[in-house]
Structures are given as C-alpha cells and as structure tokens.
C-alpha cells in the first residue's frame, strides 16, 4: 500500500512538473508561431530564442497588483480561477503517456492510474471546468465579464453533447471506457491501427471541433472575444489570478491534445513500441506537440464565429454528424462481426 502511494505521489509530481513546464512553454510557442504566421519575429530577446521569456513573464505577473473589484462577490471571485485550473490538471491522471517501462527493477506503467470509467471521468472534468469561467464572469460584477461567463456556459452545454456523442464510435470500436484499453485496442498493423484510420475519421472531425470549442480556442473563443467583450470573463483579473486562468486555458489545450491523441491517433502506439517501450513516450509527446501546433495554427488563421452561427453550427451540424457517425460505426461493426 505504501509502495503504491509512493509510486502515485512520484508520478503525480513528475507529471505536474512536466505539465506546468509545458504550459509555460506553450505560451511562448504560441507567441513565436503567431510571429511566424504574421511575418514578424515574436519574443526573441530574453535568453537564446526567447527561451527565458516564460520566466520573465511569470516574474512580471507575480509583482503586479492583485486587484479585487469593490463590488465583486469576493469568495467566488477568488476561487473561480482554481475552479478552472484544478479540473484541467486532474484530467492528466488517467491519460496514458506510454507503455510500461522498467525503472530501478520495477515495472512502471506510464499513467498515474486507470479505471473502468476513465473516459467518462475525462468528460465529467471537462464539463465541470466551465464553472470557473461562468463564476468568474458573474463574480466580477462587470457587464462584459458577465456576458463572457454566460456565453461560456451556453457554449459548453451545446458542444458537450457533440463531444460526448463523437466518442461513442471509439467506444464501439474498442469496447471499453478505460483509456489504457482504448490505446491497446489500437495496437494492430505494426502499431498503426489508429482509430482515425480505421473507422473514425468523421468521429475525429466532430471530436476535434467540439474539443476546440470546449477549450475555448479560436474560432470558438466567444467567452473572451477581445473585440466585443474587452477580455471577456477575465477582464477584471490581474496578477496571479490572471495567470491561473491562462494556465487553466493552456492546460485545457494540452488536455484536449492528449485526449484526441489517446482516442483517435493511437495514443503512445507506433512502429517499434513493442521492442523499445521508451519509444512510446516519444510518440505520445510528438503527437501531442503536433496537436498543440495545429490548435495554435488554427487560432491565427481562422476568424471568430458570430454567436448565433456558433450555436447553429453546434446543434444543426455537429450533433447530427456525431449521431450519423454512431449509426455508421455500429452498423459496420455489426456486419463485420
């Protein structure tokens, strides 16, 4: 028991450290790619290639004045950033980062834990994380913030349906809700039997778009639409509370990348993982990196939806497509078996 607890604690500590570093550097990555896409340089002064920029930004933000508006609902205003950040961090305990490796004579599975309902757990945390945004908007007592919070909750409810239905195809394919099992079911064809190639390209498309909306990324970043709402739900936030919102958003981004990889792109599967288990970690990281890059690429390429377009798209296009995908997958599965 103590052995197991120690293993969990170490794994959580390692993942937390790696994740927070990844969050800091994905901000830098985003700014550098933005520079590249917009034909300018981006932040490159602090350290070689601007690599120390996250540290400089963090230092600056810590020393900013921490403002709480006098008419704000204080308790909710203070806890709202944690309500966004904590669920997005909790997602990472079920994501399998790799297969089993042997370390100090022990077999160590590269995920913190796995259980029967891993995928539902991920969906549950995704849907709970909206409270942080909605309450931040309400507690700030600012009309733009409130609009941002309202938009976030309506958007999340609408896109959650499409998100939930789009993974049903994967469940039919793999027959399990456990993320580890889902990755293992994609191991055929020399490690290339990925769901997106086999039967789920439509499911992946729906999932990807809905995940963009759930992570509040452009073209679905209506809750913080700069041109209409100042900064949306975090208009009133400054200093470390603002940083927590930023961290929560980038955590959600990396979580969306990780879950998409796990469900549709084979997770840590790839050629050669059977002989070299350590390769699986590299495959997983590379795939997540590609996803994060695509998310950033989309942000600086596509314009934002109008709000009614967003709602119509979610209910009239994504939802029927997700249901169609379930019907097709179930029929094919039935005919093949």
């Amino acid at each position, binding site marked *: 028991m103590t052995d197991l607890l120690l293993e969990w604690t170490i794994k959580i500590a390692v993942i937390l450290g790696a994740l927070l570093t990844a969050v800091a550097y994905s901000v830098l990555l985003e700014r550098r790619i933005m520079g590249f896409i917009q034909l300018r340089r981006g932040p490159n002064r602090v350290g070689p290639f601007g690599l120390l920029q996250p540290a400089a930004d963090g230092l600056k933000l810590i020393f900013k004045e921490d403002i709480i508006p006098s008419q704000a609902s204080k308790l909710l205003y203070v806890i709202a950033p944690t309500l966004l950040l904590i669920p997005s961090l909790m997602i990472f305990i079920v994501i399998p980062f790799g297969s089993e490796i042997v370390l100090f004579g022990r077999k160590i599975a590269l995920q913190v834990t796995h259980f*029967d309902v891993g995928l*539902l757990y991920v969906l549950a945390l995704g849907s709970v994380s909206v409270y942080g945004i909605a309450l931040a908007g309400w507690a700030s007592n600012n009309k733009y913030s409130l609009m941002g919070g309202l938009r976030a909750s309506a958007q999340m409810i609408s896109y959650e349906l499409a998100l*939930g239905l789009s993974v049903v195809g994967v469940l039919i394919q793999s027959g399990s809700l456990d993320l580890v099992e889902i990755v293992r079911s994609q191991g055929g064809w020399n490690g290339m039997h990925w769901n997106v190639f086999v039967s789920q390209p439509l499911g992946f498309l729906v999932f990807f778009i809905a995940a963009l909306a759930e992570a509040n990324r452009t073209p679905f970043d209506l809750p913080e639409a700069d041109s209409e709402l100042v900064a949306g739900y975090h208009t009133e936030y400054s200093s470390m509370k603002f940083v927590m919102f930023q961290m929560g958003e980038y955590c959600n981004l990396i979580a969306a990348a990780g879950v998409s990889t796990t469900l549709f792109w084979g997770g840590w599967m790839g050629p050669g993982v059977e002989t070299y288990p350590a390769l699986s970690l590299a495959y997983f990281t590379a795939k997540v990196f590609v996803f994060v890059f695509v998310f950033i690429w989309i942000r600086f390429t596509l314009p934002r939806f109008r709000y009614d377009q967003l709602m119509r798209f979610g209910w009239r296009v994504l939802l029927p497509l997700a249901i169609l995908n379930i019907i097709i997958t179930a029929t094919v599965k039935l005919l093949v078996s």
Partner: protein
Amino acid sequence: MEKALFIIFAVVSVAAALNILLQRNPLYSALSLVGTLIALSALYVMLRAQFIAAIQIVVYAGAIMVLFVFVIMLLNAPKEAPYIEKHKALRFLAIPFAGLLIAEAFYVIRLVKPIQMPASDDSAQAVGTTLSVGTKLFTDYLLPFEVTSVLILMAIVGAMVLARRGED
C-alpha cells in the same frame, strides 16, 4: 483511510445540502447543490460504483446545474423578498409538510432490504461498474429503460412545442 474519506465526504455533502437552504442568494444555493452532488459522487466511488459516480457528475453537476447557473446569472437575483416571506401563514404550513416527507423517507428506508455490497470485490462484476449496469439495463430492465427514453423524448418534443408557440 476509507473511514476517514467517508467521514470527510459525508460531512461535506450534508453541510453543502444545509447550505442550499440557508443561502439567500440563489446562485450560492445552486453552487452548494453542485458541492453536494460532487461529494455524493465521491461516496459512490467508494462503493465501487464508478459508472454511477461519473454519470452523476456528467449529467447533474456538468449539464443540469450549469443550465441552472446560466439561468440564475441571466435573470439575476430578484431584489424583493421572496413570495414565502410575504405570506407568513405559508411558513406554518411548512412544518406538517416537512413531517410528512420525513415520515415517508423513513417508510421507504424500512422497506428497502439491506443487501450485501461487494464493496471489497474489485472484479468488473461489482454492482456499479459499466459492465454490470449496461448488462442489467439491456437485459433485465430493457422495457423500463425504453419506456423512460420515450418519456424523455416526449418531454423534449413538448418543450419544443411550448417554446415555439410564441413565434407564429
């Protein structure tokens, strides 16, 4: 360890449930309800009913309560005293009704037979896992399940009709 966790989540759920009643701001009441739901789902996990725990969070905390919070935020809290405080007589009616509800709850509790929970059994056959819930739902309880889905479908259609009536 298990006992300590049980006590923590039980206390949280009861305290949050009381807080629903004691708060005057409807938004705080709604959030307390979310707290109760999350604490209860932690208790379900301890009973090896992970599926029910996850569904509780997805459906209630994640969808229905978000909708409640959305509506409360959209309409904003009413400034004047609620209806119940304008009519003092209604308060005294509350006591017999509460008594009735408590008596009913006790009656139901007496009816339920204590069953052996396979709490320490880690197999996929435990009561609350995905496999056992799914198997039961699509074999033994297929008819109630289908009837419930038809009922919900009717409710959705009804809601659509009511919402659209103003448009013509």
